[in-house]
């Protein structure tokens, strides 16, 4: 009889423990929003800098082509990758720039940002994709 009670007690304790573990594991916090906010903000700020300093205008009509934009993108924080493209109103890609060492974004969360731009009477759409760089090793 005593052995049965001890076994029953052990089973109840184990069951209770398992339930607690399941509940606790479901409560694990996955921080995701701050990173996305950071990328979005970085993309919008980068577009603003590129546009207001005339870098995009230079890339579209100047002699600097995409180098004009590349300098700014390379100066953004190393952990983030930005791929920026300027499209005309027919949705043709006119000029683009991608941060170096940022070709691989497979399986990563991408943040997008879009802004309109008017230059010399033509309408353009600036689109960016940004993501956190894959950690090497």
């Amino acid at each position, binding site marked *: 009889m005593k052995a049965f009670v001890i076994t029953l007690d052990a089973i109840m304790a184990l069951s209770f*423990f398992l339930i607690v573990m399941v509940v*606790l594991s479901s409560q694990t916090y996955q*921080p995701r929003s701050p990173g996305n906010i950071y990328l*979005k903000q970085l993309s919008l700020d980068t577009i603003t800098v590129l546009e207001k300093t005339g870098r995009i205008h230079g890339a579209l009509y100047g002699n600097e082509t995409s180098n004009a934009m590349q300098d700014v993108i390379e100066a953004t924080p190393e952990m983030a990758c930005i791929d920026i493209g300027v*499209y005309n*109103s027919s949705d043709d890609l006119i000029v683009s720039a991608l941060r170096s060492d940022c070709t691989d974004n497979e399986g990563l969360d991408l943040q997008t940002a879009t802004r309109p*731009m008017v230059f010399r*009477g033509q*309408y353009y*759409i600036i689109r960016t994709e940004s993501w956190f760089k894959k950690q090497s090793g």
Partner: protein
Amino acid sequence: MRGFVITMMSMSLILILMALSMSLRSNHDATERVLMEPLPLIYAAFLLDDTAYEFNSIIGPEIAFNETNESLSISVKDTLHAYNHSSDISAYSAFLGSELALSTESNITTNFTNMTGGTVRVFLDEDYEYVNDHTNSEITFTKDGGTGADSYDISFAVYSLRQNVTHMAFNESGTLNVTIHYTDLNGTDTEEGSVFPNDYNVFEVQYPNGTRFVVNAGLVGGNPASMRLKTYGTWAEVSWTADLPPLNETIKRGYEYDASIDYSQGPVKVSRRIGK
């Protein structure tokens, strides 16, 4: 009995741990909501601000505000010429409603009805009204009940030979200071003095073939301390600065065109005048 007490204590401890964990999670969720919920609206505001910036680059004018605790000045640079921006505005409206809406997966509709007749109307710091009527080559700056301006500094340039100048009738007792810099093929001249803000005060430069440039400072459209610039048969580059009383802190700063934009993306719906 001893075993029962130990079991109860263990269960109590574990339940407390669970409660703490759930509370922590709930707190994190609340923080995340606070961070995330306003973001779609903030991003919409970014887009609409950018739209205003681009719209301003299409139809002008260049506007600058300079505000301190004691004073406010508004500076505007524009052109007076018979040019109707209707086709530019219509093209930009179509661009916003199609390509941009498609790119941002949103619905964008604009109402430029009041801007397609050749008139660009801008509300400055909410209550001041700036109108460039391109059809009549006339610029007015006014406010219902009067602007309260202390001074106007007006510059204009006309590519023509000056024939005659009708000077403004200044009065030392006036409370509205007016400075006018006029540039043409004869060079640049300046005249300045004071006028009464409730009087109709005129300055005029005549050019060949009946063309002329007229400045009114004072009573314009029934509103004191206002300003009007008008050309007849010619075009001109103009810029002016008005020194105005300090603004009430509840007044919304910036400029807004007499045109509106409706933006919606999912649950986010923003409807406002185009401006910054």
